């Protein structure tokens, strides 16, 4: 069975999964929406209190959490909407103009 990462515009239809089904979970993670950004959030770790209020408000699941700590943005998925900066009660997020190079 062909995997999502091997499917592109040039894949012959005979090689596609039957019925256009997808057999893997969360394949969208391989897709870069970070290039959409026109503004970019910057994380100031020293000011972060790990209150987590920003995490559920991110429409793009681009704020990772591990072992009770809020980690730096996932710039491959962040679209730069600025919602997180607006809900952060501390000076831990600032938006800068421009789509800073993504990883």
């Amino acid at each position, binding site marked *: 069975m062909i995997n*999502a990462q091997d*499917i592109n515009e040039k894949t012959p239809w005979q090689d596609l*999964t039957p019925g*256009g089904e*997808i057999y*893997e*979970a*969360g*394949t*969208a*993670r*391989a*897709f*870069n*929406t970070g290039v*959409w*950004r026109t503004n970019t959030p910057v994380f100031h770790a020293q000011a972060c209190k*790990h*209150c*987590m*209020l920003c*995490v*559920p*408000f*991110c*429409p*793009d*699941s*681009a704020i990772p*959490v*591990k072992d*009770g700590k809020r980690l730096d943005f*996932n710039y*491959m*998925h*962040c*679209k*730069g*909407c*600025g*919602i997180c*900066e*607006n*809900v952060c009660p501390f000076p831990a997020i600032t*938006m800068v103009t421009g789509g800073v190079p993504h990883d």
Partner: protein
Amino acid sequence: MSKIYNLKREVEKPPRLTGGHRLCAGCGAGVVVSGVLRALNQEDRAVVVNATSCLEVSTFMYPYTAYMDSFIHSAFENSAATCSGVEAAYNALKRRGKVDGTVKFITFAGDGGTYDIGFQSLSGAMERGHDMVYVCYDNEAYMNTGIQRSSSTPLFARTTTTPVGSAGQGKKQNKKDLTEILVAHNIPYVAQTAPLGNFKDLHTKSHKAIYTEGPCFLNILSPCPRGWDYPMAQLAQITKLAVDTCVWPLYEVEEGIWRLSYIPKKKLPVEEFMRPQGRFRHMFQKGNEWMIEEVQKQVDQRWESLLEKTGA
């Protein structure tokens, strides 16, 4: 889940709606859907059914799925019927011992897919008593096809089919009260919520809806920065204003018992919610004061009647 809500514990779970989907930047739907799915117990699996909508075309685009759970795209008019069929098939397999573990069934559809075109299929699935949750993410218009009015679009709102000009001043009809229509189905659980603060309200209602046996319904306000025409960074502010003005009250009806979830400390005038949004801009022009007065009157009436029903 232990009974006490803890945001830190909840966000530690891996997201079940991943990044890399194509919803617009700042879209409320991504926040609503990941919030509902977070309420699943981590060890349980889900089947997600989705009617055609902004959500569907953005989260499931061959060969990319933004779901960690099984997903099925159904046509616009029958997502509830599709979900009820999958649930019935699961029950048959379970009886024969062919599946193990807990699987939950969740449908997501927009207001167009719920209030209008999928309404008969929703009503039928709820009445038949399937063990499923139907979630309407309500952005108050047909956004995916270019902001056409639906029966959920509020009175006087500008859409591309209710334009503002010499011949008209936005939508002429009222918003349908779908949540109350679902209450009238006498199902175990119906609730109205929105993405707010620490997400306690949205999370606890989602968890209840998912784990209450039988058909449950959630109506969740889902701001659309494109259709509502407000700055996309203001999502949290807009939903807060919707509940503090009582334009979108938070309540639940469990086994027929009405319960108000939130009473604003200070009930704000409706214009606080409307002013930041371009779809209501014409209502602030000189000579149109009556429009805001009319909306305020209706919101007050509905709030009073809700206070009565909930005994608050």
